């Protein structure tokens, strides 16, 4: 039953790992602006689309 020491150790290490990740995330400013990233992540697709449009345009010219 002393396996419980190992289990406890693992569970605490995992928990502390997540906790540290949270602190690092806050420290780096991820929670300072909670709106802009939600808009920014949608841009990628449009950029690609726009590039292909332009290549067609240049062909026409």
């Amino acid at each position, binding site marked *: 039953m002393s396996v419980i020491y190992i289990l406890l150790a693992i569970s605490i290490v995992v928990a502390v790992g997540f*906790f540290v990740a949270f602190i690092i995330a806050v420290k780096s400013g991820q929670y300072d602006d909670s*709106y802009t990233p939600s*808009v920014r992540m949608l841009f990628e697709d449009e950029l690609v689309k726009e590039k292909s449009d332009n290549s067609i345009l240049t062909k026409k010219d």
Partner: protein
Amino acid sequence: MEHKTCFHCGLDATSSEILYDDKSFCCNGCKTVYEIFSANDLTCYYDLQNAPGATPKEVAGKYNFLENDKIVDQLLEFNNDDIQIVSLYIPHIHCSSCIWILENLNKLHPSVSSSIVNFGKKTVRITYNSEQLSLKNLVELLSSIGYEPYISLEDYSVGKKRIDRSLIYKLGVAGFAFGNVMFLSFPEYFEVGEFWLEQYKHLFRWLMFGFSLPVVFYSAQDYFISAYKGLRSKILNIDVPIALGALVLFVRSTAEIIFDAGSGFFDSLTGLIFFLLLGKFFQQKTYSFLSFERDYKSYFPIGITKINQEGKEESVQVYDIEKGDRLLIRNEELIPVDCILIKGKARIDYSFVTGESKTVTKKSGDKLFAGGKQIEGNIEVDVLNSVEQSYLTQLWSNDVFKKDKQLSFTTLTNRISKNFTITILLIALIATSYWLINDSSKALNVFTAVLIIACPCAIALSAPFTFGNILRILGKKKFYLKNASVIEQLAKINTIIFDKTGTITSNKEATISYEGETLSDLEESLLKSTLRGSNHPLSRSLYNLLADHDILTLDSYEEHIGKGIEAKHHEKNIKVGSAPFVGYSAVTSTLNTAVHVSTNNEYKGKFTFYNAYRKGLSKLFNLLKREYDLVILSGDNAGEKENLTKLLPPKAKLLFNQKPEDKLEYIKFHQSEGANVLMIGDGLNDAGALAQSNVGIAISENVNVFSPACDAILDASKFNELVNYLKVSKSAIKIIKWSFVLSFIYNIIGLYFAVTGQLAPVVAAILMPLSSISIVVFTTICTNIVGRKLK
């Protein structure tokens, strides 16, 4: 005629006839921006949002102060070799297109290596190579695409602001510990006496103790500090019973595990702190794009052009201006100091200072006050006072700006908590003495149990959650409060004081009436075509007023700055503008602004502009008069007195010619007589009154532009709703009182267990979260019901 809107900015482009790429534009400025974007493959800007742009303004020379290294240094966030980082506030940021274009700045200029938008704060943080691109060029680049940054004296030397994230850390620590302690304490809730549990329970208990340490000594430290401060100044605030409860919980639990007497209450302890911090976090709603602390610094420019003794122009920092300096004020620039006009014709817009939108014309030798904005051509002035000693800025040396309103105000929660703490201590003492007589072994147990169970978690939570939610609801209705305690203050108001200009009158609209000979159809369409070309605010409002006419092609068109406009169509000549300009010599005695018209040098008549009061004003006043004393304090002359008395209930007091200090003193006097004053104003001249009043509301046509320091900002379109917002604040207080009743019921149940000496950890662990969560649910439902009634 087909209605067309500008592809770039969405304004009416029916009559501009500017076409490019099959798209219509309202002006050449908008067209130029489109050209820039299409040349750089950035037309995606227009796909994300319809007509997202703004017309770029003429900025030549405006940012010359950015050539001064000293000023630039203060604005930069980071400056090393050739890499510079700057954060700029751009008021126009309003949609996803804005984010997209600003984050793709490097396509417009390769020296920009990265740009990151913070939409909430309306800022963009730009990293660029300073050898190829100076800050001035960067600002001009942004201005040229319609994203002109706003740089004011407030930005000076605050480039490195520290953000306080301690509450999130504390909440994170408490939540982390709470979850883990819950897991560890779960086995002992039910399986007492089981073999394996008996063997390992010490390990579990010491682990819980370990998890609770950071919660008590880090997360909960604010409560201990606040309780200590309260006790030292002899106030029993809500943090006293909380700190007492947390302390007793920790000490008793530690003692229990040391003497192997039980599992302790670490689960309740960490849960309590977690819920309390959650409430604090919820209440801390801030509108990052608004500022409630503005003083003159946010209006004033950083740098200004000085003409030195050799007659050359140089940029100087505003604080370095000395008496006797000669300054050059450009068109659209703000006058930062009191001065005398030397050269040029001044037309000053004092709307920042007085809220009055009409401009004042000055001639050389006249005194100009700080805070005015020159709106016609360049002028040269001699400085009379330095910035700090100018008439406007001296208002801020009044004591009222130094004191914190919140400190002088006891909240409802703290008033309740005083009686609550005394009652709890009495119950604890009585119960302990009873057990000392009957069964002394239980006495200490009962004493600590009472303090633990009475810890007013639910009471402490009801106000933050109610106010926090009301704050959000009002924010959606365009009534932005500085913080939650403003709601409580609002509920206690009994006197409402209004400023006149800009507050109960609307700056946007004016009533225009025409006096003189009737204009023929041809003359009217000629007038309209003439006005179309002018950007003067009076021309614009007159243009919008005139009925639709065919637009004539003008043979000649000339704008005489400061006088009027002149145009010619076939043999017909028209002049629009000031009385002397159109050749009208009769003396006009009116206090109101007028535009005169003459055709073929024959005087026709004048259009007079009157103050337009906000729609629904008299209805609002009639609703308000039932419960509140109403006063109007105006800085203007009594010219509008007759009009106002007709509109307003007879009970309302009207006072004219009030200087900023007079307003402040008036409020101070009434407060000393026991009035709780709500001041509603808009200009910087109201700043003192807003600060002195119990609640100061700044009214604003556009909440993104600046308003003076205040407790709340109200969007002008919601002015009529004021009476309902006041009602909501009263309902909020009622909701809090009811949730107090609810939490008292929980406390009585808990006290029954405590006093009889049978408080098991499992009871506390159930009762505490249950009471907290039900209070949160109760206040959320009630506030949403109240909020739904608002339009």
